[in-house]
């Protein structure tokens, strides 16, 4: 339950210290440097004309009125890009999507044309008067109807495509699972929909593209979580028009929240780049909130029929999930190539099941392309929500306490490393301890007694548990790549002569605090105070290549790379220390910050002295300098876990769900900065609350987006958000260099089923088995009304 790494002094500030964040002074004083803050001489503005229809032929585009406005320099359409074969681009899933359409639009708010002007207001004026004539086409909104034989085929651009089916994927043994279900005493079955949501980072997406003609160099400041991968994608997509990878520089400056929404390449980026190349001036594009919500990649949208089998005394035996994934008009997810449904087969969760079969089919519809994550590793939230709901349904069905059912079926701690029936090797865990701790903190037994009393009085109080297992840190190169690029990540550390250091990484913080936590890792490994370690990321001209920050992968991959690079430096430092002190290497002992001669504590050299020697007095025959680079290929994924307990009270008159308490016990292995880990969990819990009770992007039958502004898309404020209670257990990852697992998304993954289970728990005695999220007042009120509670 404690860290398995030594604690450095506060002056060094290595792992385990709640160091204040190094990046904060600039943010606190309005000196952050976000994409919209980048202004270049002669910079132009871009605004986008978007489709009002979800599916329509483009009959004509008349830009003459826009071009007549003083200050409008160009209107770019699909036909303009077609001349360069840039009107389509690949998605990260090797599907294709339009940059700008030539003949038809596929969803409401799709980009139709771009206006380039000298000023943002003039660009908007121009966009308002581009006349586009459309001819409406039949709209496919429902993914189930999309797969019916008579459905209109949406992707007519794909030769020979005769339906709207994208992919079929499955895992597990169907026959063994069928037998387990046939042999089961109890089977529960439930349709569960996890709706389409949007990350809605407070900073929207945008870029400043600057093509310097004389050198042929393209620089793009861009809201991206994965700058290096984006550079390669740009080189692959636009290589045929002369953009070569060494001439492309992607800079991801300060990023105002990402959560997965800033992984994809959106058409707006590509149009801005094309505009800058064509016109020869820098072009800025910043989407507004409605564009952000209506056109950028969504998350979730999984329709599942789930089944769970058990013995009558509550031993879980098998599960079967069949899922339909609505991807919009293109599969623009950001999953590793081999996994079209992400890591959904983590869906056996924290339980020791003997059989499981899961299958997912993807469907095209007339909606924006996706789906990316919403602060979660690839499709893990969908998996966790479904298994945790099903376990609760089973508990209620057989009359067993949901905590007791979980305790009975958890993987035991001595079973780790544990091979799941769907093929994962869980690295470490102690699930019983985490749930017990959460139960003790919240006073579980007392709450159950209170619930009985309240129920007798006709009040609705519910207690919900979620005991989740995450799967993060993608990933081992044998299985994990995006567009063929293996999912390693990197660190490069240079120690300067005076013993200070700069460290650069292939990842990119969007608020996670890398400038602090990476410095603490280097401090831990080398003993150089974290205050003296400058961390840089996000500039492809200077940082080593990496796949970026998403899926809680930064600590498991780049964090690991930092430790490995630091250890290479330490090995060299030992040689230099031995040379300078004229002793054998094996006679030296290391503690963070210095090498001491064994048995002679007075004889030592600090890392700062050794660094100076590396440049002034290094051994003959040894390379000068003190630096190292490491590309870390993780041997396995990491499996953070936790148990959450939520208490809700439901207003019988209004259907309002009030989260009275929420206790989160997380285990992310060894901790770099406890303050930052707590902050990550607070934020993750809030992004778990949001889709549970408030957020949804839905569409009417004509394909009109019904959640396309902050009027309709309800991001929780401080008033709706409860005061999260957090605690932890510590079970280090055995394969990570310093035993960490990653934590940024655990709470988003774990929280929704705790809330949903609490609501259903409050209403089960009425005959309520399930309610899909978001559990809005109107939805809950209707359930109460349908069960005779309220009028």
């Amino acid at each position, binding site marked *: 339950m404690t860290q398995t790494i030594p604690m450095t002094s506060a002056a060094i500030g290595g792992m385990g210290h709640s160091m204040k964040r190094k990046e904060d002074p600039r943010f606190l004083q309005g000196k952050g440097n976000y994409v919209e803050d980048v*202004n270049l001489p002669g910079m132009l503005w871009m605004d986008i004309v978007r489709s009002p229809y979800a599916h329509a032929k483009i009959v004509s585009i008349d830009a003459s009125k826009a071009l007549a406005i003083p200050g409008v320099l160009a209107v770019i359409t699909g036909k303009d890009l077609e001349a360069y074969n840039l009107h389509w681009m690949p998605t990260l899933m090797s599907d294709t999507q339009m940059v700008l359409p030539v003949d038809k639009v596929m969803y409401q708010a799709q980009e139709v044309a771009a206006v380039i002007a000298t000023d943002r207001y003039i660009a908007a004026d121009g966009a308002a008067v581009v006349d586009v004539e459309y001819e409406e086409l039949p709209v496919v909104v429902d993914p189930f109807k999309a797969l019916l034989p008579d459905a209109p085929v949406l992707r007519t651009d794909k030769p020979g495509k005769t339906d709207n089916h994208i992919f079929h994927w499955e895992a597990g043994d169907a026959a063994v699972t069928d037998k387990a279900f046939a042999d089961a005493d109890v089977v529960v079955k439930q349709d569960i929909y996890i709706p389409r949501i949007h990350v809605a980072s407070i900073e929207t997406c945008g870029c400043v593209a600057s093509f310097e003609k004389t050198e042929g160099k393209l620089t793009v400041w861009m809201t991206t979580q994965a700058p290096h991968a984006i550079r390669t994608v740009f080189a692959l997509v636009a290589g045929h028009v002369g953009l070569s990878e060494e001439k492309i520089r992607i800079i991801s400056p300060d990023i105002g929240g990402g959560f997965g929404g800033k992984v994809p390449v959106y058409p707006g980026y590509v149009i801005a780049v094309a505009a800058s190349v064509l016109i020869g001036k820098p072009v800025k594009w910043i989407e507004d909130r409605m564009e952000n919500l209506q056109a950028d990649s969504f998350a979730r949208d999984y329709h599942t029929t789930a089944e769970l089998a058990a013995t009558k005394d509550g031993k879980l035996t098998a599960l079967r999930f069949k899922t339909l994934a609505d991807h919009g008009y293109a599969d623009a997810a950001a999953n590793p190539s081999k996994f079209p449904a992400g890591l959904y087969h983590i869906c056996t969760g924290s339980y020791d099941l003997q059989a499981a079969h899961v299958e997912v089919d993807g469907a095209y519809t007339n909606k924006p392309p996706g789906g990316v994550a919403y602060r979660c590793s690839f499709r893990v939230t969908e998996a966790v929500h479904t298994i945790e709901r099903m376990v609760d349904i089973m508990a209620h069905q057989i009359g067993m306490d949901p905590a007791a059912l979980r305790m009975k079926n958890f993987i035991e701690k001595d079973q780790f490393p544990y091979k799941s029936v769907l093929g994962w090797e869980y690295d470490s865990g102690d699930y019983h301890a985490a749930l017990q701790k959460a139960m003790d903190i919240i006073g579980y037994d007392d709450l159950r007694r209170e619930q009985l009393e309240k129920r007798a009085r006709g009040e609705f109080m519910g207690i919900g548990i979620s005991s989740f297992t995450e799967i993060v840190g993608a990933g081992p190169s044998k299985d994990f790549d995006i567009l063929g690029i293996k999912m390693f990540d990197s660190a490069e550390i240079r120690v300067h002569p005076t013993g200070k250091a700069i460290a650069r990484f292939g990842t990119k913080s969007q608020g996670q605090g890398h400038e602090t936590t990476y410095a603490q890792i280097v401090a831990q490994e080398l003993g150089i105070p974290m205050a003296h370690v400058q961390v840089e990321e996000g500039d492809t001209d200077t940082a080593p290549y990496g796949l970026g920050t998403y899926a809680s992968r930064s600590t498991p991959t780049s964090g690991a790379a930092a430790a490995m690079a630091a250890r290479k430096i330490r090995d060299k430092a030992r040689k230099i220390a031995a040379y300078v002190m004229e002793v054998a290497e094996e006679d030296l002992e290391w503690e963070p910050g210095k090498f001491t001669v064994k048995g002679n504590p007075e004889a030592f050299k600090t890392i700062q002295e050794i660094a100076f020697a590396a440049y002034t007095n290094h051994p003959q025959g040894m390379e000068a300098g003190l630096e190292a680079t490491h590309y870390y290929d993780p041997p396995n994924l990491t499996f953070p876990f936790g148990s959450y307990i939520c208490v809700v009270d439901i207003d019988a008159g209004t259907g309002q769900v009030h989260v009275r308490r929420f206790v989160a016990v997380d285990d992310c292995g060894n901790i770099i900065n406890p303050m930052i880990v707590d*902050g990550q969990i607070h934020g993750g819990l809030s992004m778990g609350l949001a889709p549970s009770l408030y957020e949804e992007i839905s569409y009417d039958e004509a394909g009109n987006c019904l959640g396309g502004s902050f009027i309709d898309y309800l991001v929780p404020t*401080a008033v709706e958000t409860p005061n999260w209670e957090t605690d932890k257990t510590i079970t280090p990852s055995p394969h990570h260099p310093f035993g960490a697992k990653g934590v940024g998304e655990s709470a988003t993954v774990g929280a929704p089923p705790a809330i949903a289970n609490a609501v259903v728990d409050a209403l089960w005695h009425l005959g309520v088995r399930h309610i899909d999220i978001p559990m809005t007042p109107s939805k809950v009120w209707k359930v109460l009304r349908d069960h005779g509670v309220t009028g």
Partner: protein
Amino acid sequence: MALRTVNFTINGEAKSVQAESRQLLVHCIRETLGLTGTHVGCETSHCGACTIHLDGEPVKSCTMFAVQAEGKSLTTVEGLAVGGTLNPVQEGFWEEHGLQCGFCTPGMMMTATALLRTVNEPTETEIREAISGNLCRCTGYVNIVKAIQYAQRKMHATPAPEAVLQGGD
């Protein structure tokens, strides 16, 4: 479109700018004056990233025109620290980890600073209500509330109470 001259003070400095009548105040601040600490997150008054002070009152500068600032006194996040010293709210946000990506932070701190100027000892509920026009996606608000309580203690030099928070509603 015709330009108008608009005079105001911002962070204590008198300014005279040329603005189109339709120019939003936030664009005048960010683009004409180059003070990019004030952010835009929605352009519909929902997110509060653009919050500044207008004659001491918090306002959302994305839904005001620049010409409406004529004769007014404006303060932005760049005006909070005095002589390089963070004000108590800025200090509180740093100490209590009240920010992550930093994008909502300037607006959040402007709202908090205005609250603490008008209410001596706000309760947690009052703090949560006061910042309910400012959205944060990263922090879950817990540490923002703590940051504002830190600033309140610092400004009024009251002894630190037990760090017990009640839930929001």
